[in-house]
Each structure stands twice: as structure tokens, then as C-alpha cells.
């Protein structure tokens, strides 16, 4: 079955920058689909092309089998919820919601009925005659959603709809958005840079970087089985290991020789052959620190290394540790470990600075990446910056570049 919404080789350039580079994917009918990526990754440009505000330089966009690439925004059955709400300040809430219906010259009674229905859906019945300036952020956001939904679009686009709200309201609106999606059953395309929102709301997530889609999967797969180092590092935190497969164990596992660390047992779901260079990603919360060397109850599937704690940050629900393997502080492995507090931990001696402890993880918790880029290591959570002289300069250049790209990406805001 063909997808309800399809991007086929869509490319958009702004001068020398390619904001979206040959993107091809599909979205199913009724799906809550999220485009996730850092600012300047091209997600907003993609959304704007879908809405009709920008036109792709190459490629096609199909909606319900029809090519909508060249249609102006007012001729598409696609409606947008804008990041800054974009409510018409001179119109009341009712008139804002009725705006699209009036343009379609629907009978008065029908307009009133549909607007009332929407006001009920977003729980703003009592506010119909107010002006947008009289509403709070969350209420404005709900009006923006109602205004777009009242036209019964084939696809509802949401451009960072929660970015302008404070944390509590954001969490609440997430639940509300989810419920609205369940009730109306319209396809949602949701752009965000907040991995938490995407993970919590979306049926599937497309992770984008530099105008390219890196991975499209349901949230759990994105988190547990990242295909690239970028996906692994952008969504949550992780540890990367570089090594060479030395032998295959039990068909589904392999040993990876990691320089200066030793042999790491890893699940080999991609059936990579011995001798190949591989990169592993292991999430901090899958690593364990213990005072005693853990007993291997899993036929050699647990990796155990001695490490030294050199930084510890208590964060309430958990404690984050940074540990070192190796004697020389300038040339050693530094790993990030997340230890969730549970009652039994309180019974043991707390792990503290400079403690020599054991680090362990199960082979199934290491994941082999298909693609690795050294630069993604800068996305990781790390207490000390490496003492490379030109590191700050590079960061500045990166900021400038991403700022420039952001300007191009979100042109108009």
C-alpha cells in the first residue's frame, strides 16, 4: 500500500546551503509522525514545503496519491499550527477559528456549529469572544490547533508548537495533543528539536541532520537501536567504542577488540564478519558500577572492566558518574554512567570520587552503529572539555554556521 503522504527525492537549496537533500520517505494515514533534529537540520524547511510556503528545487510531494508539489498553500488540504501561534490579533478567538470556514463561504449555521465543536475540543468555550492578547500561551496554542483542525485537513502540521510554553504547560499540552490526535484521527506531522516531545508523542520519528533523514523508526527503536552515531548521541546520551571484530561467538555474538580497553562482547545482529572495523554505542544507564567484581551469570556475555570514578553529579532520581579506564589521565577511556537510585543501593556503600570500582554491562546492551562520525562526540554529555587548543574556536564556528543555517532554514521567522 502506498503511503498517504510521500516525499520523493525532495531537495531545497538556499544559496550555497542545501537545507534539504534528496529526502524520500512516507507517512501513513492517521499517523503521528515527528521530524526531529537540531536547529538547522532542514526539518522546518521540509515542513514549509509540505505546507506550500516554500517550493522544492527538486523532487515531488504526494498527498493521497496526488502531486501537490506546485500547489500554493491555499489550495492544499494541509493546515499548520505555527510555533508563535500566528493568531490574528485583530480578530476574536471565534473569528480566528472561523477564518478558514468563512473563506470557504460555508453557511453561517454550519460555521457556528463547527467552531463551537472545536472550542469544545480544545476546552475554550468560555473564551470565544476574547482577543488573542487576552489569552495565556497555552490557550493561544489551543486556539491555533483549533483554527487548523476546524478545516478538517488531510494532514495537520505542527511546527515546534510547544517551544514557547513553559515546562509544566508543555508537559500538559503533550498529553492534550495526544488526546486530540486520538479523537480526530488526522495525520499529524510534528516538527521539534526536543527529543522528549518526539519520543513521547510520535508513532514514528524521522531524525534529521544536515538536510538528510538519518533514521525513521518508532521511538523505542530509535533509542535502542540507533543506526548512526548521530542518532545515538542526539537522542539521549551514550558511550562510543571503536574496535575490530576479532571472532564470532555463538553465531549471534562477537568479540570486539577495543584498543587500550580489551575485548568487548557484543550482540552481532548485523552479522558482521571477523576483521571488520565497528563502532559500538552503549547507553550510560545500561552500565553498572559495583564495588565488587560482578559474578558472570550469563555465560561470558557480561563485559567487566576496572575503572576509577573521577566525577560524580547527583541529580535526584539518579546519579551521573564519569569513570576512567587507564592509568594516564591524558590518554584513557572516559565513560558516562547513569545509576538510578533504588532502595537497595542505599544499603551499599555509596560510590564516591576516586573509588576504584567495576564497570559492567550485558553484551545485549551494546549496539553496533552502521555509521559513525567523530563529530557526534561533541553532542555527548561530558564534564570536562578535552584540552585541545583550537576546540573553542571550532565551537564558535559551529555556532555561527548553525545560526546561519537556522536563518535560512526558518526564513521568515
Amino acid at each position, binding site marked *: 500500500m502506498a503511503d498517504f503522504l510521500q516525499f520523493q527525492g525532495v531537495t531545497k537549496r538556499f*544559496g*550555497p*546551503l542545501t537545507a534539504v537533500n534528496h529526502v524520500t520517505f512516507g507517512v501513513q494515514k492517521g499517523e503521528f509522525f515527528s521530524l526531529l533534529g537540531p536547529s538547522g537540520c532542514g526539518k522546518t524547511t521540509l515542513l514549509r514545503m509540505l505546507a506550500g*510556503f*516554500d*517550493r522544492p*528545487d527538486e523532487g515531488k510531494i504526494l498527498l493521497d496519491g496526488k502531486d501537490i508539489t506546485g500547489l500554493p*498553500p491555499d489550495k492544499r488540504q494541509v493546515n499548520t499550527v505555527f510555533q508563535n501561534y500566528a493568531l490574528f490579533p485583530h480578530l476574536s478567538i471565534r473569528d480566528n477559528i472561523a477564518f478558514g470556514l468563512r473563506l470557504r463561504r460555508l453557511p453561517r449555521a454550519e460555521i457556528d456549529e463547527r467552531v463551537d465543536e472545536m472550542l469544545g475540543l480544545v476546552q475554550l468555550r468560555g473564551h470565544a469572544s476574547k482577543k488573542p492578547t487576552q489569552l495565556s500561551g497555552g490557550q493561544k496554542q489551543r486556539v491555533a490547533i483549533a483554527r487548523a483542525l476546524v478545516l478538517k485537513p488531510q494532514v495537520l502540521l505542527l511546527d515546534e508548537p510547544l517551544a514557547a510554553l513553559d515546562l509544566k504547560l508543555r508537559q500538559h499540552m503533550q498529553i492534550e495533543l495526544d488526546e486530540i490526535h486520538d479523537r480526530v484521527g488526522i495525520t499529524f506531522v510534528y516538527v521539534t528539536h526536543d527529543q522528549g516531545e518526539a519520543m513521547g508523542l510520535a508513532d514514528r520519528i524521522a531524525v534529521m541532520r544536515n538536510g538528510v533523514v538519518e533514521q525513521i523508526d518508532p521511538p523505542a527503536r530509535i533509542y535502542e537501536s540507533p543506526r548512526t552515531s548521530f542518532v545515538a548521541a542526539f537522542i539521549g546520551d551514550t558511550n*562510543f567504542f*571503536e574496535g575490530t571484530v576479532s571472532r564470532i561467538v555463538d553465531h549471534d555474538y562477537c568479540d570486539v577488540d577495543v584498543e587500550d580497553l580489551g575485548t568487548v562482547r557484543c550482540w552481532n545482529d548485523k552479522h558482521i564478519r571477523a576483521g571488520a572495523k565497528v563502532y559500538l554505542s552503549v547507553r550510560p544507564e545500561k552500565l553498572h558500577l559495583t564495588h565488587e567484581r560482578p559474578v558472570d551469570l550469563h555465560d561470558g556475555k557480561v563485559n567487566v572492566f576496572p575503572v576509577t570514578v573521577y566525577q560524580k553529579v547527583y541529580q535526584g532520581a539518579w546519579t551521573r558518574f564519569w569513570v576512567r579506564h587507564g592509568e594516564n*589521565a*591524558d*590518554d*584513557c*577511556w*572516559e565513560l558516562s554512567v547513569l545509576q538510578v537510585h533504588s532502595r537497595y543501593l542505599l544499603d551499599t556503600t555509596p560510590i564516591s570520587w576516586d573509588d576504584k570500582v567495576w564497570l559492567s554491562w550485558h553484551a545485549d546492551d551494546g549496539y553496533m552503529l552502521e555509521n559513525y562520525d*567523530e*563529530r*557526534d*562526540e*561533541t553532542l*555527548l554529555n*561530558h564534564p570536562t572539555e*578535552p*584540552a*585541545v587548543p*583550537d*576546540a573553542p*574556536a*571550532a*565551537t564558535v*564556528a*559551529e555556532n*555561527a*554556521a548553525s545560526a*546561519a*543555517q537556522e*536563518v535560512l532554514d526558518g*526564513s*521568515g*521567522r
Partner: protein
Amino acid sequence: MAADVDRAGAGATPAVLEAPAPAVRRMGLLGRVRHHGAELLLTAPSFAWMTVFFVVPTVLVLLLAFRPTALDGGVGHGWTLQTWRTISNPNYPSIVWRTIWLSFAATALSIGIGLPCAFAMARIKAQWRPTFVGLVILPFWTSFLIRVFAWRLLLHPEGAISTFLHSTWTIFGWQFRFLEPQTTLLYNSFAVLLVMVYTYLPFAILPLYAAAEKFDFSLLEAAFDLGARPWRVFWRIFVPGVRAGVVSAVMMVLIPALGSYVIPDLVGGPNSEMVGNKIYQRALPDRNLPHASALSALLMLGVLLPPGVAWLATRKRHIGATDTDVVSAMSSPASNLGNSGGRRRNGVRS
């Protein structure tokens, strides 16, 4: 100038209507005509109006300056430099010189007085500021002519100030008066300067205040904390901080001052004429249009010089900034970040 900068800064605002622009290339001939048609429709009326009633008359002024004068008061045929030769006679340079020094003096005084005013206005409580701005603007909602006329009344030999200054005062048994009864306050360059400052001061105060309002006054506290004296703090910290306001205040005062006509005409005498007065005399009573044109051309040059310089300066800086942006955007992280990824290796092995 300020307005230019503002405009450049707001370049990205109207987004939708800009959006089709890159697509024009693929729209075909008809589409192209239609696309530009909208622009033409919106642009043509005011563009044409400004061309007919601004560009053409300006060019006309420049051309007429090179035409001979006909005896009957019209414009003769052919081209000549005669007018320019007459202008360099000893009479005119002194008028040009007076125009320049009066304008610069008025500008300097306006800014010198305007700076402390702007400082005071920016330091009062925010809720009172609109009222104070209103107080500055309000007298200037009355007709310009009437304000000049009011000064004429005040400075008039039988007016309030003269009466006050000419009368004899006995203070502690000492007889004394401020001015001899014969001195006139009116019809001299001092009166012209005074009324110019009176008229143009708000134009200096407002941009200075706009800049001062954005000024971070904790800088002054920091300077005092470091032991600077008030005078020094004012000139070395505050004034450079409102530099942009000073530049636009100079423009706002200097340009109209150079073109003054009414003020020297009403409160100045024969010895305080400015270029504006001569332009009027040559154009209307004398009907010597080439002469008036040459003087106007001269004034135009003088008036367009300062903003031209300012514009070139800001434009240069702007281009520079754009270049930097593009350069940094093109040299994306790839080249620079290569050796900073040292998570695995804490530093380079060496």
C-alpha cells in the same frame, strides 16, 4: 544612517510573499510577466510620482545652473559657466562660510545640550518617560513659523527680554543694567543661532534619548566603582555608548540647519544671511533662475555629503558582516571540528 540599518535588519520579515522569488526562473515568460506585474503595479505609482516631482526637478536644478541668464528674467539658450563664476565673487563665499559655521555651531550646541537631557530622560522612572518625551515634543506641535515669530517678539527691541535687559536695576545700592539701551537682540547671527538651537534641539534630543534608553547604565556604576570622576564617566562611557544616537542627531540637525531659510529671514539681519536666503532672493524677487539653481546645487552637495559619508560607512560595515556570515557558514563544522572530538582520547596522543 539609522533608518538604513533598520531596514537592513528587517529584511527577512515579510516571508510569504518573498517565497516565490526563487521559483521565478522556472515560471516561463507569462509567469514572469505576471510575477513582476504585481511588483510593477505596487511600485509604479509612487516611483513615477517621485521621479516626476523629485528626480526631474532635481536634475533640472543641476542643469539650469549651467544655463545663462536672460535679461528678461528667464533662462537663456546654450550652456555657460558664467553663473559659477559669479558665485565665486567675494560676496557669496562669506555667506557660504556663515551658513556652514552657523549650522555646525547649532548642531554642536544642540547635541551638547541634548546629551544631558537624554541622560536625564533615560534615568527617570520608566512610567514617567512618555510624559517627558511628550513635554519635549509638545511645543513643536505648534507651527514652526509661529515659534520663530514668538522669538521675534521676545527679542524685539520693545519685547520682554529687551525690556528686561535694558532696564536699570538697583541691587545693593549698585546701579546696573545688562545691556546698553541701543543694543538690539534681533537681526544678528546670535539671534539666528539661538532660534536655530531652539527649533532643532528636539530633533537632537529624541534620537539621543532613543539611544540612551537602550544604554546599560550599570556601566556607569562600574566606572564610578573603578574610581572615575562624573565628568569623565559622562564623556568616556555614556557618550560613546550612545554613539549611534549622536550620529543620527547630527544628521537630524545639521541638514535642515544648512538649508535654513525662515530663521535667518525673520530673526537675522543683512549680516546674517544664509544660502537659503540667497536662493530665495535670486529665484523670486530677482528672477535669476540659473543663479538660484547654482546656489541650490551647491547646497544640495553640502547637504548630501554628510549622510552620504554615513551611508557609505554603515554599508561597508554591513557587507563585511554578511561576508563573515557566509564564510563561517561555508566552513561548516567539518573542517574545524575534526580534532576537537576527543571524547575517547582525552587529548592528542603525543
